[in-house]
Each structure stands twice: as C-alpha cells, then as structure tokens.
C-alpha cells in the first residue's frame, strides 16, 4: 500500500533489480523494470532507451550515447587501444578483461575523444558499465586525464558521462590513485577557465562519484540513476536501519542540494547546447 503511494510520487526511484530481470527472449524483446511492460527493443532504442510508457531510463551504452549526441562522423577517438597490464598480478584479471572486451566490443570501461554537439567541438568521455561494471583502473584514469588535458590544450569544453561502480579492485591502490590523477587534471582545466560538464548516469558510485563525477562546473544526473559514495548495504549494516527506497537516487541528491539538475534524456542535448552556447568554447568570454 505504502509502496503504491511511493511509486506514484516517484516514477524513477525503483532501480533495476531481480524482479526487473527479463523472463522474455533476450535481444528482441525487453521487459521494463519501471512498469513491467514488455516491448520491442527497437521501440526502446528509437526512444534513446527511455521507456515510452513510464519514462524509465534504461542504460545507454557508450556507443549509443555518442551516436545520440554527436554530429554524424564528427567523432575522433583517443587512446582507443590502451589496455591494462595487470599491475598487481591479480589472479584471473586478464581473463576477465578479455571476456569483457569480447562481450562489449570495448577495450576498456571508457571511450574518450572529441566530437561536435550541434556545432560545438567538445572533448567527451563516456563510461560504459558493461565493461567491468565501469570500474576505474589505471587505463580509465589515464584516458580520462588525457582527455581533460587535451580539452585544456585545445581550449574546448570537457563533457563526461559517468557510469561506474567505483575503483577497480583488481588494481588495488593504483585504481585509488586514479581518483587523484583525474582530479589534478580537472584542477588544471578549471585553473585555465576550461568548462567541464558532468552527467552522472546509472550507476555512479564509490571512487568515481568521489572524484571527477562531482567536479564539473555543472553536475547533472539522469532520472533514477543510483549515485553515492558508500554502498546501500554497507550503510544499512553500519547504521542498523533501513534506508528510504529513494536513497542515493538522482532525485534524492537533487533534494539534498548535491546536483544542479536531474535531466531527462530527451532534454539532454538541448541543455548541453545551451550551456555550450553560453560559455563558448573553452569557457572564455568572446
């Protein structure tokens, strides 16, 4: 009963969970975790992976994101073939990377490069949760830091779409230090008046939430995205109380003053264009 009231108030609060997992043929059809309706994947894709019935924001992978935002053929990818060396000699890590490369068609959990959004040239980084849950190791840190540096040098804006479970455990403290590496790069960008926009998508947690994701001049999030530092279960164990259902959602963060806005995917390109046009390339007055 109480749940019903909640659901009416907050359309986006429920996150993908076991119930939402599809018991329908994979590929062709898709069941929506938001409204439980089953529809054709094509229908969903045509709608930027937003449920046409309930507005639930399904994840967009990095390629879909780039395609939906950038002018056709404007994208130039950077550091495409950069891969991990397994610095700690972590058991089975290389196999896991290889498996994810095959599964996702990506070499790592982030794609970086530059492209044009409605005429505005921008450096862009898009994380993809299909690769090691979007976790950040040395390669993700290095690619993002390089992209930020390139934006600074070319005096173009930097836009990042985050989707990550946080630091990558298999690279231990090296992955932790990528939080520093990317943050130092952002400091250099900001010091020279560069513009940075962060768009947090589902999920953005741990070390990614506690570094570059939170350091934009503008910090946005997609509806319903899970965003937070510590995991829900750890918090519940620590404070020994049940957390509200909407805890750590984009809407929760907005309410607590942690975001500039929650932006519907259909409005995103327009909003980005407005910000880019207000700031001009590089964030300088002209």
């Amino acid at each position, binding site marked *: 009963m109480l749940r019903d009231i909640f659901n009416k108030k907050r359309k986006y609060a429920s996150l993908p969970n076991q119930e939402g997992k599809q018991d329908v043929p994979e590929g062709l059809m898709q069941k929506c975790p938001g409204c439980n309706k089953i529809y054709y994947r094509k229908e969903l894709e045509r709608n930027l992976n937003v449920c046409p019935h309930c507005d639930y924001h399904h994840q967009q992978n990095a390629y879909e994101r780039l395609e939906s935002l950038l002018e056709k053929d404007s994208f130039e990818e950077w550091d495409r*073939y*950069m*891969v*991990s*060396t397994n*610095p*700690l000699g*972590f*058991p089975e890590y290389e196999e896991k990377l290889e498996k994810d490369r095959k599964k996702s068609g990506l*070499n790592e959990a982030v794609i970086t490069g530059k492209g044009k959004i409605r005429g505005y040239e921008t450096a862009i980084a898009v994380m993809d949760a299909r690769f090691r849950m979007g976790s950040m*190791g*040395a*390669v993700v*840190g*290095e690619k993002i*830091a390089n992209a930020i540096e390139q934006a600074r040098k070319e005096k173009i804006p930097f836009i990042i779409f985050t989707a990550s479970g946080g*630091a990558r*455990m298999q*690279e*231990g*403290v*090296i*992955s*932790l*230090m*990528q*939080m*520093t*590496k990317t*943050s*130092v*790069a*952002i*400091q*250099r960008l*900001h010091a020279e008046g560069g513009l940075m926009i962060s768009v947090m998508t589902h999920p953005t947690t*741990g*070390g990614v*939430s*506690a*570094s*570059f*994701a*939170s*350091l934009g001049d503008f910090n946005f999030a997609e509806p319903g995205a899970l*965003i*937070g*530092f*510590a*995991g829900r279960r750890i*918090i519940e164990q*620590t*404070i020994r*109380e049940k*957390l509200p259902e909407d*805890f*750590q959602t984009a809407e929760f963060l907005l309410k*607590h*003053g*942690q975001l500039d806005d929650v932006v519907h995917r259909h409005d995103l390109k327009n909003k980005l264009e407005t910000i880019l046009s207000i700031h001009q390339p590089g964030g300088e007055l002209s």
Partner: protein
Amino acid sequence: MKQVLDFEKPVIELRGKIEELKKLTQESEMDLSEEIETLEQRLEKLEEDVYDRLTPWNRVQMARHPERPTTLDYIHSIFTDFMELHGDRLYGDDEAIVAGIAKYKNQPVTVIGHQRGKDTKENLRRNFGMPHPEGYRKALRLMKQADKFNRPIVCFIDTKGAYPGKAAEERGQSEAIARNLMEMAGLTVPVVCIVIGEGGSGGALALGVGDHIHMLENSTYSVISPEGAAALLWKDSNLAQNAAETMKITSYDLKELGIVDKVIPEIRGGAHRDIKGQAKKIDQVLQESLEGLKSLSKEELLETRWEKYKKIGDYTTLPL
C-alpha cells in the same frame, strides 16, 4: 600493559621470563646473570625473527593496534604551539579530523589529520576516525588558509575510511572528497602527507594529495579493507589474511608501485612501543621533505605534483 598481538606472543613471554629472573636476582642472593644473558641473546634473535619478517597481515594488525599512536600524539611530539581550530563554517565540527596551526622548528605550518580515539568514549566522539563531509570541508578550509598565508601543510592519514552513513551521503560525502582532491592539487604551498596507521580508500585520499607521501613501515594504504576484498573476491571475509597479500597494501608494496616516496622505519615491535622515538623518525623524514620542497617555485610545485600523479598506473597498447 600493551595489548599483545598473536604473532608476538613468544617474544612477550620470553621478555616476561627475563624480567622475572631479574627480579629474582634482586630479591634473593642467587646469581642468575649467566642465565639472563643467554635468554637476552635468545630474545634478540627471537625479536628479529618475529618483527623483522612481518607478513602483510601482521602489518595490518600493527596498523590497527589499539595503542598505536594517533595524529595528536605525533602533533604534540613533533610540533610546538599547536592550536586546534574547529568547524567547516557550513554544518558542524567533525572530531574525526583534527586541524590547526603550529610551528615546526619555529616555522609556521598547518597540520591536519584523521583522529581516532584511544578508548571507547573518545572513539564515539571521534566516530572511530571516520569523517563526515564536514570533516573534509574543515580540512579544506584550513588548507586554503595555509595557502593564503603561504605556510606548508602536513597531513597525517589514519582512517578506516570515510563514514558510510545516511547523513554523510545526504551532505555530499562524494562531493567533499572529490573537492579536496581537486583543491589540494591547486595548493601553492608544499604538502607532505604521512600515513601513520590505516589509509582506507577515498576517506584517506581526501587528505592525501601531497607533493610527498610517506608511510610508516607498518601502516597500510588500500582501496578496500582486506576483509572487504576477501568478501568480494572469495565470498569469505575470513580470508582477509590472503587479501592483505593479494591487494598489495603495505608500505613496501606502495613504495614498489611508485606511489609512496619514503617508508619511515618503525620502532621494533611497532610505533606504540615508543611514541617519542617514533616521532623522531617521522620528524627526520618530514624535515628532509619540507627542506627539499622549499626550493620549488609555486609553478614548479604545481607542475611536479601533476607529474607525480600523472605517472601512477601502467598501461599498454593492445596489439592490432
């Protein structure tokens, strides 16, 4: 009475036996000096065996020793005129972090560190050294003050991590940590960070963007606790000892990975055996650090800091 860790029991027992014999010699007319000397030699050998070959897990135990010296212990031994300053001016004062101004060999400095409690009562007040956002924001406020007045900053790192709580999330734990990383990167004064106990993940890192990072020999720095890693990797937190090895979290590991500048040797048996003695060893390294950084211009400081962090983390190119 110092708390005894399991692996050091033989040492403590033998040491006790020697004390007993010494007492006996004093109280009675017996001459036991020969026996005592033999035992002392054996003790020396045993101490070497136990303390000079600590496993990663032993070091975790040392880093967590309830009597391990805290930030305030070192502040009072290394600096003079320390004046603690409170509050983030936004929400409150987080006692899991102490911060203030002081003099180091007559030079002004700002000192900041995570602060655990020495007993349950103090630990409750200090939240076991696990900060909320206001703790990090207090630290940042005072770092900016140090920057304004051009005095070096010394940070002591000693936390299991940022507090995983409801209020902490509501007030922006992520943002507070992220902002510290970014703002510390832009400080134009020397920043020296010293890990003295546990360096737990982002909560440690938020005081850890320094020009030099040093670690006490038996301290740890990790992305996740050994228990947490074991639970994730092998679904069994009892395998924490293995995780302590796999995750490469000791001072020597971090030195090898090129993250840490210096490993500060510890008093044999752990820093808690002689706080003053340990403080002296820290003092030496700190002095060298600050001396070396003094000669850098503001621009050089920023550039070398960037280079330091840019080079952490290896990668390679996928063969085509």
